[in-house]
């Protein structure tokens, strides 16, 4: 295959990955999540490199299998999928499209990641103070009048909140 053919093949493979969804947040594709590091066309088959989101995320193995199956059934096989831990995945790699899909799905998308450095440990009021740096908007009604119920939720990547205006609970994809 020529270099141009290999390139076309890789572009086609990337498009297949648009339809491989995160089993725990089934509106986000692996590309929206920003976990695909590389898609390389080999003489025979393809090699895909993924970055895990959380160390203990139980979806990691399912995602690797889904990527392999999707590419192989689209005729790109044999496909090998490997994991690359460094640099560590961050929510900054999530696409704008992914953030929009999350909001529409009812999950508040991640905000800015806290810069490395000491974290001041003080009592955390549920309702942010007026001067709080990050105000989380309710993904349903848009109100900024929300409070955090817990930093941990139904999956490793989410926290639990509620809106004090529309009174609905909602989840937030935590910045990492």
């Amino acid at each position, binding site marked *: 295959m020529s270099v141009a053919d290999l390139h076309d093949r890789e572009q086609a493979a990337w498009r297949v990955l648009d339809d491989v969804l995160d089993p725990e947040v089934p509106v986000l594709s692996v590309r929206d999540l920003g976990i695909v590091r590389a898609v390389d066309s080999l003489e025979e088959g393809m090699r895909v490199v993924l970055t895990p989101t959380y160390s203990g995320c139980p979806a990691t193995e399912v995602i690797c299998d889904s990527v392999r199956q999707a590419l192989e059934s689209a005729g790109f096989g044999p496909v090998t999928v490997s994991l690359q831990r460094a640099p*560590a995945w961050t929510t900054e790699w999530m696409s704008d499209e992914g953030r929009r899909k999350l909001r529409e799905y009812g999950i508040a998308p991640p905000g800015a990641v806290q810069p490395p450095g000491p974290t001041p440990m003080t009592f955390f009021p549920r309702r942010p103070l007026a001067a709080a740096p990050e105000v989380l908007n309710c993904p349903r009604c848009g109100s900024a009048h929300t409070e955090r119920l*817990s930093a*941990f939720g139904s999956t490793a990547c989410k926290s639990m909140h509620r809106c004090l205006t529309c009174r609905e609970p909602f989840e937030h994809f935590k910045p990492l």
Partner: protein
Amino acid sequence: MNSIAVSASLHVRYVLRLADTCLIHAQRLSEWCGHAPVLEEDIAMTNLSLDLMGQARALLSHAGSLDGQSWDEDQLAFLRDERHYFNLTLAEQPMRRSSAHSSGGDFADAVVRNLILAVWFRLHWQALAASSDAELAAIAGKALKESRYHEEHAAQWVIRLGDGTEVSHAKTQAALDRAWAYTAEMFVDDDTDAYAQAQGLGPLRSSLREAWQSSVQAVLDEATLSVPPASSFLSTGSRGTHSEHMGFILAEMQYLQRAYPGGRW
């Protein structure tokens, strides 16, 4: 199923100490599943446990690849005996249920231990992100991000309970008193630490004491809790000599693989 023995390599030992502390702490936290005081906390405890389990898996796989005997993460978790486990003694102490030898079993024990260990881990991950061992550095870079949420969560609870009611204050102080004697071990160096420092693998444990003390002290001050007096007791789990609780936790963790060797599901 016969037990396996890891090599005496100090590099392997260094990685196993971290892996085993993650794994045993995760196992204790998982005991809260279905038993925490409120649903949100049930979910939080199991989430913390899941992160730690993920970190343990990565570290065990790495230790297995360094060991030269091709042990995988499951073999290392399920087929090592007590003397081949190198976790901090604090991690194996009863957390939810009390035992004949310990009056632990209080939610306060869980939040105090989470704070003590989360700060210790965070300082390790920060230092290890620059390790000469590239895989260890990659695991630490990932774990560091997760440990911030662990530390924040633990600190919130210690402050909430310590500076709460008279009863919650007394229970949290009692939990702190129970845990404190085991913190000396967290900062004692031996040949493994000296090797790690010489090879650029990671820091001397003793070098982390000051930063740990100041982070923990800041939370305890806000929680109106007092630092217990130092004692001459020194636990030795990270050298492979454990407290009486270790055999029981391994029996619970390892039963299935010992009874049905190689069983998969």
